[in-house]
């Protein structure tokens, strides 16, 4: 029951697009994230950051959305970075053994910093 919004906040910062979904990313809400990422990709930023600080829960439809996005940005000059996962969300990345597949940062600061 964390606060949810029907739109995903977007902010442009230093050539990066920061997307901040909120609430649960499940089968009923992952299409929102998919749409936001597609739109961001269209702008060809150097980096898309998905800030998960306000995401309380994610299931495999959320993972699928992120895996798809990762495949689509590959070789396009856009990097996809995830940050600020809570433990519950991190657990599902671990179960799916996807922690290595994604670039995951502790917080937004680190996600916007270079590496």
């Amino acid at each position, binding site marked *: *029951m964390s606060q949810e919004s029907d739109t995903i906040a977007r902010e442009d910062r230093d050539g990066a697009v920061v997307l901040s979904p909120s609430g*649960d990313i*499940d*089968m*009923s809400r992952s299409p929102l994230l998919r749409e936001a990422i597609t739109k961001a990709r269209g702008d060809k930023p150097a980096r898309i950051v998905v800030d998960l600080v306000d995401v309380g*829960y994610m*299931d*495999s*439809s959320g*993972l*699928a*959305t992120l*895996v*798809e996005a990762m*495949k689509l940005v590959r070789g396009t000059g856009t990097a996809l970075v995830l940050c600020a996962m809570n433990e*519950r969300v991190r*657990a*599902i990345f671990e*179960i*799916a*053994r*996807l922690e290595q*597949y994604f670039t995951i940062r502790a917080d937004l600061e680190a996600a916007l910093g270079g590496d």
Partner: protein
Amino acid sequence: MKTRRAQALQTEPHIHLRVCSDPLYLSGVRDMVGAVARRLGFDDLGCSQIALAVDEALCNVIRHGYESAADRPIWISLWPEALGAEGASPGITLLIEDEAKQIEPDQIKGRELEDIRPGGLGVHIIREVMDEVEFAKRERVGMRLRLVKRIGERPAEERAGA
């Protein structure tokens, strides 16, 4: 094993729910299951895992069983798993049933994790977090998934050799 299971399924479920196959209701079902698991004595991680397994199972029924039709029925039954006669730890038993087309249970398998692509994670996740996972055809129509998780037992996949 057989005795306890037979026992559990003979008694009425403590909660029996019919929900329509609309993703809108996933959060309600998993929050219910998570809250019940907490009262049955599971810790934070255990509650999250049970909620996740049920969520994934419902997603699969909606997508594969009902091909995303939002107005078909899904039934969820819940039993607390009492301390078994054999001294098994307490826990929770869940049954998820549909009236979708039937599929051979051994056809339902998660993909290898090495093959990274968008789908194919649901079944893997369910098997990873629950202690018993059993797909079966129902008597006439539809599928039945039986899930068990016991308190303080590590999921099957974490145990060596399992």
